[in-house]
């Protein structure tokens, strides 16, 4: 099973790769077994993906209909929809992306074009990669102490800030990766034409990877759309339609959480429908982002 077994075969100069050689036989069987296991693990992964999707569709489709998008979250015992939660989620996630995109792109430009290998860039890159996987519940705690405890009320903005903190590292990372794909000759050509660096970056390099930057934004969108833990302590929830970002705001993840845990059938149905909606959104965003990314990096 180790390289040692290969050596005797080649050193004697006589081929041992014959079907009746016991060592060879064992190696072949070990290989077959391990490859079968490898296939098995792939199937294992796929089974879970399909199982979860199947659960979502079988339980979520029941409440899927126009009412889901037009009616408000109902009181217990009546039918309704998730319109206010969907709208609230769009507002919070939209604001978060609006905050995170410029910060992420600028920081990404710094890492790839300006700082490159200086120590600020090195540390930032390192920290950014860690924030990429930082526990989101801790981000929620941070924003609670930073904003909610100071302004003394839960608000859509607090939720948006928490989500933005989660989104920024994704945008930074993708922007940097994309900018590094741009061949240096392109930058050199632009500089030779007498352009200052900022024009080179904005008009040439960034422009040539715009699809990639959009990928980053989409991945960030996908990452934060389903985040629940940080919203529990920040934007809370709202039973009604509200567009006031300064007040507690309805949002899909928290509504799903609350409704899934309730004893009322109508609420549980809506929770599954919401879960299906959010998962589909996230998966579609991911697939679009990946397709764009692939086009760019090829």
């Amino acid at each position, binding site marked *: 099973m180790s390289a040692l077994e290969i050596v005797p075969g080649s050193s004697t100069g006589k081929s041992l790769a014959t079907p009746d050689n016991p060592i060879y036989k064992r190696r072949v069987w070990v290989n077959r077994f391990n490859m079968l296991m490898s296939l098995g693990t792939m199937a294992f992964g796929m089974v879970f*993906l399909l*199982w*979860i999707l199947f659960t979502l569709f079988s339980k979520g489709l029941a409440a899927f209909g126009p009412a889901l998008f037009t009616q408000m979250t109902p009181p217990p015992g009546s039918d309704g929809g998730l319109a206010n939660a969907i709208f609230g989620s769009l507002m919070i996630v939209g604001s978060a992306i609006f905050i995170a995109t410029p910060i992420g792109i*600028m*920081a990404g430009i710094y890492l790839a074009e300006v700082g490159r290998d200086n120590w600020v860039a090195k540390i930032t890159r390192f920290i950014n990669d*860690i924030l990429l996987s930082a526990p989101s519940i801790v981000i929620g705690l941070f924003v609670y102490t930073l904003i909610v405890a100071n302004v003394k009320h839960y608000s859509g903005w607090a939720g948006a800030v928490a989500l933005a903190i989660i989104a920024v590292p994704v945008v930074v990372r993708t922007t940097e990766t994309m900018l590094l794909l741009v061949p240096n000759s392109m930058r050199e050509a632009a500089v030779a034409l007498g352009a200052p660096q900022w024009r080179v970056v904005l008009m040439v390099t960034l422009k040539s990877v715009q699809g990639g930057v959009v990928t980053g934004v989409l991945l960030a969108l996908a990452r934060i759309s389903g985040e629940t833990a940080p919203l*529990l302590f920040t934007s809370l929830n709202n039973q009604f339609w509200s567009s006031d970002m300064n007040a507690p705001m309805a949002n899909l993840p928290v509504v799903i959480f609350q409704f899934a845990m309730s004893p009322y059938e109508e609420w549980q149905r809506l929770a599954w429908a919401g879960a299906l909606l959010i998962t589909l959104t996230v998966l579609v965003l991911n697939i679009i982002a990946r397709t764009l990314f692939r086009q760019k990096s090829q």
Partner: protein
Amino acid sequence: MARANGSTSKANSFALQDKIFGYSTQFFALLVLVTLVGIIASLFMGSWQTLSETGPKFFVTDTWDPVRKVFGGMAPLWGTIITATIALVIGVPVSFGIAIFLTEMCPPALKRPLGTAVELLAAIPSIIYGMWGLFVFAPLFAETLQPVMINTLGKIPVIGVVFQGTPNGFGVFTAGVILSVMVIPFIASVMRDVFDTTPPILKESAYGLGATTWEVVWNVVLPYTKAGVIGGIMLGLGRALGETMAVTFVIGNAYNISPKLFEPGNSIASSLANEFNEASDPAHLSALITLGLTLFVLSFCVLAASRWMLSTLTKREGKRT
């Protein structure tokens, strides 16, 4: 002469513009650093009460009594580490298998769709895993596999104690299994990516010597990409430590330190999700924020180690080409 002057001033203004541009991008990069410092500072301030009053004893005290205001973080810390360990014990071999499949066995046409499908597992929001775990997986596990495990693995002397208990579907083990499904995509895609960095010439020479696919993977690819593989595992570990919603739904939420994996337990993240909005007593709140700080420092170290391992691989890459 005039022309030369013009171009110098133009060059000067370019230099100034670039300076402004450089500093403004640097400002945003520093924002990222400031965020990190802010998170650590705010958690540190919030946990000051516990840290100054209880000190290091906090981490070896297993009592969590909100009535008497005695708080020790040992149980959630234990649960966090145990669930993450289970996640890795299941997740690493599976991820390894998936990575081998995707790099060595998979027909080229299926490579991309299957690779994307694995990555989509990572995109499913944590709360969905939680609902699925609570309503679908745990009941099924309790009815089918769990009694079998208790009756077979539970009978093994000494280590059998790990698999004893009532088959109710919830507990540390279930949380670990669901976590493993959640970390597989992270570990598997890093492994796949680093396996792909193995120079074809190395693999081809081994194949040329008559090595089987498995032998090539085990004796050539794996040693070559060791650092990256460990980095990927550390990344998965970092994810598993901080996962909240999915764990909260199924772990059973009890402050309990026990080798029995089918018993309810607690993790740091699930304690926070359960109690943070409820805690009104300053000592309770501070103890919870201390847990949050612990979690952050823990995952910071693991993720930093992961980064470091992965960067040594990239560096070698850089030298090679």
